């Protein structure tokens, strides 16, 4: 048990472990290096806008900027390991120093106790008075030594030393484990920037390497189905994958069938490049860089003039907006979208699985996953509705993030991923009655889900939650694009209709137990039931399960609340721990069958429509009666309307 001494030792018990002074020197040196290295990343980052401004055009300028960004990322990544190593060694030095102090105490105790104990042991059984006196003195000496040292016997000191050795050994192993962890982290952080993806990409292309990789996989051209893409991807080495991504980041960063982590890596680099462009634009005009999207709303009129968004004649409305001003406005819009995406990624544990800011006439196509969809057992896609767009990504993202947290709590045994899917061109108020955008979105939704299935490899539980117009997108994807083959359950919330010709859940390709419908009784969407975009899935004859979605805030005074507009947007509300978010979490975690046990199943409304004029009129004194529009109350009998809303629904206590 006793290790050999590391240094000359004066006492009975040798010291344990290294010299704490030397360990502390190493710890301090690493801490100093960490402090120096902290300057690396910010110093490189400061040059990105300058480089972009100085070298504004061309593919090679882009590549240089992107590589500087990657270098910055790596420079940032080297700092934490040095901190961890310094802290681990510092703690170990403390433990060693404490160990040495303890050894000194034990040696002192040994010196005090050992001779008197040995003397006592050497005495024979007393037979004379003198021997009895001597023994009594010896016993007194032992008692005094024991009182002074705190040890009854030398054997106790031996035991204490063995405990000390074990304690220092554990400290040593903990320190070594921390060091090994941060050493291994170097390979996790990534290859050094000299072998960056862009390096590999150019190298591979120059050598015709992609063709070689394809031939090796038995393909003549790059595959176009998610399953084939995933299969091809599995044949590539890490360097080859990085090379393919680098050869066309915009294409491969958004290609279904490529694992989300790889897409995230290249898409984040592209996002940083875009933001660097915006930063450079602001720097060139002497405007402070925004910390986030919200800062763009606080630009002063003078700053807007400097950015070319305004001039005095435009401000005074004496001249229409100039083309250059429109161009500046588009540039600001793009910058706003990029910052919104970055703000959403900052919610944490996020992957940028789709990033196509130029899609849909510049409104953008983005999907952000919370959790890792390639390894999660439960995957949910949140399909937003009317008026959603990338510039509002933080809203879609926060909805998905709340569902991510609640559904993860609903099933801790299985990893969860929830995707904020702003993957289609959502309509505005003016175009909401048309199904054209839903039809286009349905193709994309079905393809993206197929891509998730392809890259996962196992058999995850997949749920799609379609909100409002997003329920139409989902309905059409189910009816026309085979989405039903890839999903386990579907939740339609605040639905304005499932689109197409579906009349029942069977027409969606789903079983009755796979469809869940949630529409709050006061949601304004009730006023459009079965009139806008196909069959209302809330109808009693549609099938599926209606779940509870009433909000305790539903009767709050205020125009938006009274008209049901706010209730159309409360399905993901976390405040008051709502019925809706709780129910959605049950469904998203694959436990839709638990809704009844959780008292979250709601009765359907009676769809025998009450003529609008049968609604109780409001009769202000002295005025003719006013017939209020729906839903005051809704134009049918909805049992949920009268049921008191409940709150406090949580899968785990906070």
């Amino acid at each position, binding site marked *: 048990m006793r290790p050999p001494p590391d240094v000359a030792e004066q006492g009975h018990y040798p010291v344990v472990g290294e010299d704490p002074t*030397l360990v502390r020197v*190493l710890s301090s040196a690493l801490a100093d290096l960490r402090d120096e290295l902290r300057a690396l990343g910010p110093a490189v980052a400061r040059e990105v806008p300058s480089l972009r401004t*100085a070298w504004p055009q061309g593919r090679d300028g882009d590549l*240089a900027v992107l*590589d500087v960004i990657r270098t910055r990322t790596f420079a940032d990544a080297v700092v934490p390991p040095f901190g961890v190593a310094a802290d681990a060694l510092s703690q170990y030095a403390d433990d060693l120093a404490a160990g040495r102090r303890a050894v000194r105490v034990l040696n002192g105790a040994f010196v005090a106790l050992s001779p008197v104990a040995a003397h006592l042991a050497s005495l024979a059984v007393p037979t004379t008075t003198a021997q009895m006196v001597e023994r009594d003195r010896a016993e007194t000496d032992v008692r005094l030594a024991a009182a002074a040292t705190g040890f009854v016997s030398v054997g106790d000191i031996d035991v204490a030393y063995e405990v000390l050795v074990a304690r220092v050994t554990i400290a*040593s192993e903990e320190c*070594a484990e921390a060091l090994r962890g941060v050493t291994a982290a170097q390979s996790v952080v990534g290859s*050094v920037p000299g072998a960056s993806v862009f390096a590999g990409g*150019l190298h591979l292309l120059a050598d015709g390497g992609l063709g070689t990789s394809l031939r090796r996989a038995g393909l003549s051209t790059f595959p176009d189905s998610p399953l084939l893409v995933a299969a091809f991807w599995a044949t590539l080495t890490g360097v080859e994958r990085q090379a393919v991504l680098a050869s066309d980041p915009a294409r491969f960063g958004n290609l279904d069938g490529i694992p989300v982590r790889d897409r995230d890596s290249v898409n984040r680099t592209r996002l940083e490049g875009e933001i660097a462009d915006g930063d450079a634009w602001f720097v060139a005009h002497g405007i402070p860089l925004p910390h986030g999207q919200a800062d763009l709303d606080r630009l002063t009129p003078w700053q807007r003039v400097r950015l070319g968004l305004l001039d005095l004649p435009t401000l005074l409305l004496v001249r229409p907006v100039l083309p250059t001003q429109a161009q500046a406005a588009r540039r600001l819009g793009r910058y706003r979208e990029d910052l919104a995406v970055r703000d959403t990624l900052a919610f944490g544990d996020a992957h940028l699985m789709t990033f196509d800011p130029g899609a849909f006439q510049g409104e953008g196509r983005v999907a952000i996953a919370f959790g890792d969809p390639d390894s999660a057992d439960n995957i949910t896609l949140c399909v937003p509705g009317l008026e959603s767009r990338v510039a509002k990504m933080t809203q879609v993202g926060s909805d998905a993030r709340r569902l991510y947290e609640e559904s993860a709590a609903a099933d801790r045994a299985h990893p969860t991923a929830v995707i904020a899917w702003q993957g289609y061109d959502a309509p505005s108020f003016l175009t909401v009655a048309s199904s054209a955008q839903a039809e286009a979105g349905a193709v994309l939704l079905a393809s993206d889900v197929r891509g998730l299935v392809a890259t996962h490899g196992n058999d995850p539980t997949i749920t799609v939650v379609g909100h409002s117009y997003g329920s139409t997108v989902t309905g059409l994807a189910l009816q026309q694009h085979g989405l039903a083959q890839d999903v386990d359950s579907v939740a339609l919330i605040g639905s304005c209709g499932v689109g197409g010709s579906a009349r029942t859940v069977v027409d969606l390709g789903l079983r009755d137990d796979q469809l869940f419908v949630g529409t709050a009784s006061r949601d304004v969407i009730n006023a459009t039931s079965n009139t806008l975009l196909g069959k209302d899935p809330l109808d009693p004859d549609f099938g599926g399960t209606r779940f509870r979605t009433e909000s305790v805030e539903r009767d709050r005074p205020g125009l938006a609340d009274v008209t049901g507009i706010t209730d159309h947007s409360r399905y993901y509300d976390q405040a008051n721990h709502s019925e809706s978010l709780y129910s959605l979490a049950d469904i998203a975690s694959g436990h839709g069958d638990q809704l009844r046990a959780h008292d979250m199943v709601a009765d359907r409304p009676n769809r025998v429509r009450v003529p609008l004029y049968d609604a109780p009129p409001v009769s202000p004194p002295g005025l003719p009666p006013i017939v209020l529009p729906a839903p005051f109350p809704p134009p049918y009998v909805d049992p949920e309307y009268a049921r008191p809303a409940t709150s406090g629904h949580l899968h785990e206590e906070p």
Partner: protein
Amino acid sequence: MLAMDPDRVRGVGGRIGEVGQLARSAADTLSHLEVPHARVTVDQAAAAFLRVWGDALLALATELRVLDELCSCSAAGVVRDDEAARFSYAAPASARTRTAVAG
């Protein structure tokens, strides 16, 4: 034709080069650090840490220096814009440096 402002690109390169010096200096310091003893697992783990992260810092410094040279050479017109990226990234760092000098 270069789609860049040569003086400004060169300025950026110089500053990136300075950061590279910092990284190299850190790596040099790391290579001179010694583990306190060579008996127990802490020492082996510390030695591995110093070796791996020292290499990473050296590579980082090299990359930053290459970026510095890329910016400077491109800005001086030594390398055409359409060749700059290939020059910078297609070969190992040491070869890149030689190419830059030769160019």
